[in-house]
């Protein structure tokens, strides 16, 4: 499934804008093939549910997904769109 097929109503919210404590579903990652594959191997694929642990100024975004904790740089968090879980 892709963003279009899912018919999302909350298009355009960036992971980098989610407040700490938010639980969101990853919708799309705007990145090259290489980077997307690298991110996918860590569990970050469209449709995955993640939890924002920290969001602080220009610093990295800390998220929890599955059983792991990931720190994502601003640059990449600004290229991830998310939606609120159904």
């Amino acid at each position: 499934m892709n963003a279009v097929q899912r018919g999302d109503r909350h298009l355009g919210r960036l992971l980098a804008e989610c407040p700490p404590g938010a639980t969101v579903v990853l919708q799309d990652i705007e990145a090259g093939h290489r980077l997307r594959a690298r991110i996918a191997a860590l569990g970050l694929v469209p449709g995955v549910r993640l939890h924002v642990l920290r969001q602080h100024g220009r610093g990295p975004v800390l998220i929890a997904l599955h059983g792991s904790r990931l720190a994502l740089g601003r640059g990449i968090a600004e290229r991830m769109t998310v939606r609120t879980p159904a």
Partner: protein
Amino acid sequence: MSGRTWRVAIAGNPNAGKTTLFNTLTGVRHRVANYPGTTVESREGRLQRDGEEILLVDLPGTYSLSSYSDDERVARHELVQRRPDLVVQVLDASNLERNLYLTTQLIDLGLPLVLALNMSDVAEQSGVRVDAIRLSELLGVPAIPTVGRRGEGGVELADAIVRALRAEPPPRPRPVRYGDDIERAIGEVAAALAGSEGAKPDVRWRALQLLEGDAQALAALAGRPEALGVVERARDRLRALGGDSPAMLIAERRYGFTSGVCAAAAQRTAETRHTWSDRVDEFLAHPVLGVPVFLAVMYAMFALTFRLGERPMEWIERGFGWVGEAIGRTWPAGRAEIVRSLLVDGVIAGVGGVVSFLPNILLLFAAIALLEDSGYLARAALLSDRLMRRIGLHGRSFIPLLVGFGCTVPAILATRVLENRRDRLTTMLILPLISCGARLPIYALLIPAFFPARLRAPMLWGMYLIGIVLAVLVALLLRRTLFRGGAEPLILELPPYRLPTLRGVLAHMFERGLVYLRKAATLILAVSVLLWALMTFPRLPAPADGAPPDPSAALAHSAAGRIGRAIEPVLRPMGFDWRIGTAMIGAFAAKEVFVAQLGIVFSLDAGDDVGPLRERLQRAYSPLAAFCMMLFMLVATPCMATVAVTRRESGSWGWAALQFFGLTLLAWLLTTAVYQIGRLVTGG
């Protein structure tokens, strides 16, 4: 009993406890080697069980088998090209879903597979119970619960390995199903591949790699336009059907599969795991609050390595000095003096030099193991990332660079904490610019001799600062030339905090110590003897009265002295004469030797009192020339131990040569500029 040696590869995610389990299985019998042409290491060890002889290969920890990093390429090469008899995947039971992603790729490879469900204890504590039997049924492969930290499950795992190796036919995992669209594409590509070369067991894997658009897989098919055409058409169709890149569609399917397996085999008894770990991170991983702890931890690591290492280092040096003296005393006077000199000044001094690094290296790696095993290393990298990113380096580069202030040799070994080859080589190449402890005696000799008291402290700080600034500039330069490419975005896993085990720390520490001794020792020893020969031959004819020859005249007469004179025209623009050149040749052994060498060329007893030497230097050189000396010794010619470990750690002479000649050229240009401009300004 089969009479052959089985090859078994151990795969798994970083932090899954792979290496601990490997050590449990092989005991101490393993060796570490660099993969040719990479900075990636492999461990190989033997396991004998039930009459079977098994060679275990510990692959680098990876999240997947794509070909994006050196680690992944090495793991993939072993699995795809060498095709081991069996793969053992170590899974972190508390993070099963993500770990199973790699499993799907291993299943596609079509190799016999055994799963080690590791850290089941941690998983249960954090509220996840994994049913190994259910998992085994779902995937069609044996799954053995283990607790690597306590060595539990090692025997059962070894038995499972032997059973799987002996089984006829070998246990093949149940294939992952990717849904009709992708399966059809796999079928088409597989048929195109099989058309010319016949069906191979890894054909499914190769078809998937091609559909994912993997660069290596596509390159391998370069000579077969008809097969490439099939791949392209299948990719286009998938993209049209799925509305996303085929690689993403495949990844989504893989996660669909893993979450299905998890739902069936893992039971979540509590909501989230490592909650206390998260609470600690509120503080330790906080961009502001975490900084004091970060600084304290870094200071503690530095102090542990160098303060605690100081004493053993002195003992070792004293011990070797004592052996040398003992030989000198008992040596029959006048007989084969040259052999005595070779033994005492060449070999024993060289071995002593090699061994004297050991305390620092052992302690440093104990500290790194503590940081790594506790999980703090990832937090330290997170905190220093923004700073290091500005110079194009990874947050973890902070550790080797800090260690560099103590000694460049362990610092280069510490670049091991970096996973990316570009980061590792950049850090390695700039490390000699960080002013190490051995430069201090040079500053301590020259600064008081040439500069008034009020300038001394700023001068000393200045030398350190110059080193740091140059390191940053060279790093930036390397990023714009040799190691080009956009900065990798920060994507860092923060493993849960764990209590390091003594066994793990000791294993790591001794492994590194042994690797250093085995890999660098012979090279350092050989260069020591070579340097000794340069400073000894050709010899002066013995004076007629039988008195020992004047050391200063002997050194001037030796090859080192002659080289010093020969290169004088090159040294002149920097304000140096042949005596400094000769001393610098000796200082290749170790930077601090420069002081003793200057003592010899100026015909002064190399005693502890440097007062007379300072007076001689004052008469011979200007303060400007003295500053140039310090500058040159800071930047130029890393010592031979640095060259030796750079060669070993980078895996090629090329990088060591680039470091050596590049820095020397930089030093020459810089020092010449400073001297010439300085002369114009001061009118000297």
